């Protein structure tokens, strides 16, 4: 039996993703919130919204901490309670879960969950260093291991154990870049080829430039309500029917296997169980392709294929638009962009569009059930959510 709604999404907003010169987190977040308010005329934000939960990874980028109330202020939401959630690249996926917990607790009935990051004003070396803060200081950062480096270690292990190829990883990039060309808000609007991806400069072998997600500015948000209130605000709410979260060691090296993310597997299992669904029931999913190998591993962790078969899944076209289970129709982190704190609720935004038939050229026809999969760091945090249309 399909699980009952935990909460409902009645509106959503997404800023343009890309290089937003001269804007900082507060202004970018306000742009996302503005869209969510405008799309929901029956909502009186000042009267109806009770609290904000916002994902934001790094103070270092803007030398600005304490982002909860700052973002609430710029979105016109003072003096409502506002909390910044930090779970590395899963910050807003976990902010979403926190918003669900707040509604399920009975304390709040209508909340905003969202996320934001401003990254492009920093050099690549600085961004590399800031992102590495989400890995283990004494045994990873201290020895020069970067974030691409951690996923490269997973890729080397996956290639060695299962025969996954660099071409298969490039195919993930080609697919997601194609999807990005259909998304006007995506950072990159550019088709690429396997040859071009394979020839791009090495970042952390075997990962090359086109295996890596983008350094992007952007913000995203959702308006969540108690399911009983949803119809007051929209005729077509999207219900969240499963939510899973798990943790693992911060150091990749301490994990039993390098070819799977245990936290993502556990979060997925929890979400499927709560939703009363299986992987074969999904119509569309947004998954955390921070690197191409991460998408291949996520196919396996979410049960879309067995361990070691992720490379074949993309090769066979199963996960492209028009395939059996389209993955990352938005373009994913790879092409839509990865403003780290904004990513989790940006994934939910895309699923909201897909399940309300608003995804235009990239619409997955008749999509009824969707999933989002958001990973923090090299897998120390994972959050998985399952959605169904009204």
């Amino acid at each position, binding site marked *: 039996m399909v699980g009952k709604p935990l909460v409902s999404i009645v509106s959503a907003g997404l800023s343009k993703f890309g290089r937003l010169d001269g804007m900082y987190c507060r202004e970018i977040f306000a742009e996302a919130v503005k869209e969510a308010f405008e799309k929901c005329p029956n909502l009186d934000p000042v009267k109806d919204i009770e609290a904000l939960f916002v994902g934001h990874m790094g103070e270092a980028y803007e030398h600005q901490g304490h982002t909860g109330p700052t973002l609430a202020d710029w979105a016109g939401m003072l003096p409502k309670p506002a909390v910044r959630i930090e779970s590395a690249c899963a910050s807003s996926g976990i902010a979403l879960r926190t918003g669900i917990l707040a509604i399920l607790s009975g304390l709040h009935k209508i909340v905003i969950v969202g996320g934001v990051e401003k990254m492009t004003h920093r050099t690549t070396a600085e961004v590399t260093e800031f992102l590495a803060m989400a890995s283990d200081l004494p045994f990873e950062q201290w020895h020069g291991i970067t974030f691409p480096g951690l996923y490269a270690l997973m890729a*080397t292990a996956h290639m060695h154990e299962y025969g996954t190829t660099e071409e298969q990883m490039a195919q993930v990039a080609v697919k997601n870049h194609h999807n990005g060309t259909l998304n006007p808000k995506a950072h990159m609007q550019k088709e690429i080829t396997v040859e071009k991806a394979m020839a791009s400069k*090495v970042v*952390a072998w075997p990962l090359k430039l086109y295996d890596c997600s983008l350094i992007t500015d952007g913000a995203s948000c959702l308006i969540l309500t108690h399911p009983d209130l949803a119809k007051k605000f929209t005729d077509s709410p999207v219900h969240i029917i499963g939510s899973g979260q798990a943790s693992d060691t911060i*150091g990749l090296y301490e994990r039993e296997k390098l070819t799977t993310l245990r936290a993502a597997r556990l979060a997925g299992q929890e979400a499927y169980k709560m939703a009363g669904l299986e992987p074969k029931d999904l119509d569309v999913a947004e998954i955390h392709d921070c690197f191409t190998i991460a998408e291949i591993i996520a196919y396996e962790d979410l049960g879309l294929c067995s361990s070691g078969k992720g490379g074949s899944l993309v090769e066979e076209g199963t996960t492209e638009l028009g395939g059996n289970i389209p993955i990352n129709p938005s373009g994913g982190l790879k092409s839509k962009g990865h403003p780290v704190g904004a990513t989790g609720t940006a994934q939910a935004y895309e699923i909201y569009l897909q399940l309300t038939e608003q995804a235009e050229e990239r619409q997955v026809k008749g999509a009824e059930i969707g999933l989002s999969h958001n990973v923090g760091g090299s897998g120390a945090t994972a959050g998985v959510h399952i959605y169904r249309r009204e």
Partner: protein
Amino acid sequence: MSEKPPPFTVSSFYKFVSEKKLMAAKCDKCGTILLPPKPMCTKCLSTNLEWIELEGVGKLLSYTIIYVAPVQFQSLAPYIVGIVELKSGLRLPGMIRGVEQEEIRVGMDLKIDFDTSVSSQWPAWPRYFFRPL
């Protein structure tokens, strides 16, 4: 009565590295070896721990060559880092020196070595690294 052991902290681990020793914490109750050392056994939650010295020899489990490096490592790039599975089955990541990029392969035998020089900058730890056996 023996002296009280150093606390089971990362700082103690690196103090041992400065003495060219690879040390881990062993749980007296369930026998789990903790690398990195932690103040409580993550298997049985016991705090009855002792320091043991590990043999710093193992096989390369996975590796990468870092081309885009963080600010403080830029002068070293490209450099090889990997995860080594020690004979005890425990794993440790680190830089791999003394191997040409073309020669690096999963499964190769490596041993630990120590660079005991310390910078004045926090956290002022020395570094270990791996080299071919």
